[in-house]
């Protein structure tokens, strides 16, 4: 089909940035426990991650390097989900930069900015899925589950990248609150959503073409990436690892809880890689209702 790696990276980074912002938002609100070290890093990286994705997208456009001034037209069709996305992403990058700058300067950030950023982050994550969900001619995409799946994956990968960077940046000061539990819930939720989504597609609820797409993942050319990379490495392994850590942490004294193991680092990387695999699989397995234009 027509969309390839640049779109995949764009969708992935959109989710990753949105998730990073929401991670720090959750930490700031205290939802990740009192000791969370994630209250800043997510804000710092979010606007840049989304901006990188957006810039990459420009290279994918047929006119991105030919007549880039035509891109102003992207704002012009209020019916197009892609137009919504341009507004959402542009606003998110701006608000995200303000939030990041003020946080970095240790200034108090107006609540309205922080909350607007959170809403825009959620919208960014949902948009990356909605962009695909409205395409009826690609039955594998045309489901309301898509934005939900992408938002959950965004939160999961965002939490992972933020934790990962916080470990290295905050070093000795790094302490964990309830991040471990958040990881577990998000990955578990994603597993359930993926199961429902794949079930619907595989068992032909959305028709034979959607089934064909699902088969590419379950038993076709992408089965190794799907089962090994996405399900195994990206979901099941980190889920077990975080559960293991959680059980182990219970036995430790509170003072040692902040300790981060190699296993956590590997799990976080796994989650991020899995999130990327998800976007790649969804885009690459797209089959339109009438792909080969055959008649009988």
């Amino acid at each position, binding site marked *: *089909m*027509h*969309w390839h790696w640049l779109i995949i990276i764009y969708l992935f980074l959109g989710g990753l940035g949105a998730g990073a912002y929401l991670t720090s938002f959750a930490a700031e609100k205290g939802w990740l426990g009192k000791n969370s070290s994630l209250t800043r890093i997510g804000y710092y990286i979010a606007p840049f991650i989304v901006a990188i994705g957006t810039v990459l997208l420009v290279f*994918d*456009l*047929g*006119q*991105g390097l*030919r007549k880039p001034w*035509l*891109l102003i*037209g*992207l704002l*012009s*069709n209020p*019916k*197009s*989900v*892609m*137009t919504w996305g*341009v507004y959402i992403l542009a606003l998110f990058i701006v608000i995200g930069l303000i939030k990041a700058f003020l946080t970095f300067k240790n200034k108090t950030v107006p609540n309205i900015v922080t909350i607007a950023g959170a809403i825009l982050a959620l919208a960014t994550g949902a948009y990356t899925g909605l962009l695909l969900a*409205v*395409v*009826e*001619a*690609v039955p594998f995409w045309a489901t309301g589950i898509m934005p939900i799946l992408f938002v959950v994956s965004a939160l999961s990968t965002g939490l992972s990248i933020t934790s990962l960077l916080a470990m290295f940046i905050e070093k000795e000061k790094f302490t964990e609150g309830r991040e471990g539990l958040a990881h577990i819930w998000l990955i578990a939720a994603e597993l359930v959503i993926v199961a429902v989504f794949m079930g619907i597609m595989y068992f032909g609820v959305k028709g034979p073409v959607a089934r064909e797409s699902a088969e590419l993942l379950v038993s076709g050319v992408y089965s190794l990436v799907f089962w090994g990379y996405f399900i195994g490495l990206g979901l099941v392994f980190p889920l077990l690892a975080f559960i293991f850590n959680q059980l182990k942490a219970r036995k430790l004294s509170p003072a040692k809880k902040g300790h981060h193991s190699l296993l956590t680092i590997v799990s976080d990387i796994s989650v991020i890689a899995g999130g990327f695999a998800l976007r790649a699989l969804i885009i690459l397995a*797209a089959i*339109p*209702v*009438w792909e080969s*234009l*055959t*008649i*009988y």
Partner: protein
Amino acid sequence: MDSREPVKMSRRKVIKMGVLGTAALSVGALGLTGIKSKTTSTVQAHEEGEQIGFLYDQTKCVGCRVCQAACKETNNWEEGVEWRRVLTSETRKNVFLSISCNHCENPACANVCPVGAYTKRTKDGIVIQNPDKCIGCKYCMYACPYQAPQFSDKTGRVSKCHFCYERQDRGELPACVENCPMGALKFGKISELRKTYGETAQVPGVPEPEITNPSWVIIPKE
């Protein structure tokens, strides 16, 4: 739809066109002749004022591809695109399908295009894509069930069949219709085509018409 509605609408339109026409004439008197001629064509087209579509008679088509060649010649296809294609049946002999854009009642391409390059004319429902606006995002290529919008790697943009709207505005036939030697391609008001030839918009292999409600009628070969 209520049959009275269009009459009421058209009466209002007549008045509107009259006002517009007068205004244009007075402007035309000032020397801007271009506007005058444009208005004339609008008034002409108002007489139609209804969705038009293609009629494809599979029983007459011999797969000669003259429609394709005529389209290519008339519309100067950009490298790598085919505004009209002639498909051959995989299972039956001498069964073809000549297909271009179906100028759908609910054009998915127009809904998804972020730059608004697509417009659906109110007077005849032709879906026109302006390649000069296209940024080459290819979203429409996913949205269209018939793969009518096509991308040229050479120009980096999408283009598609526009039903030879400029020819039609001049009172000429679409190139494919005019040149089909078998009379297998025709066009007209879709309501009348459906009344006369049935409502078939799908033959085996073609996606279901519910997605976009295409404005075409096929006379299938049994």
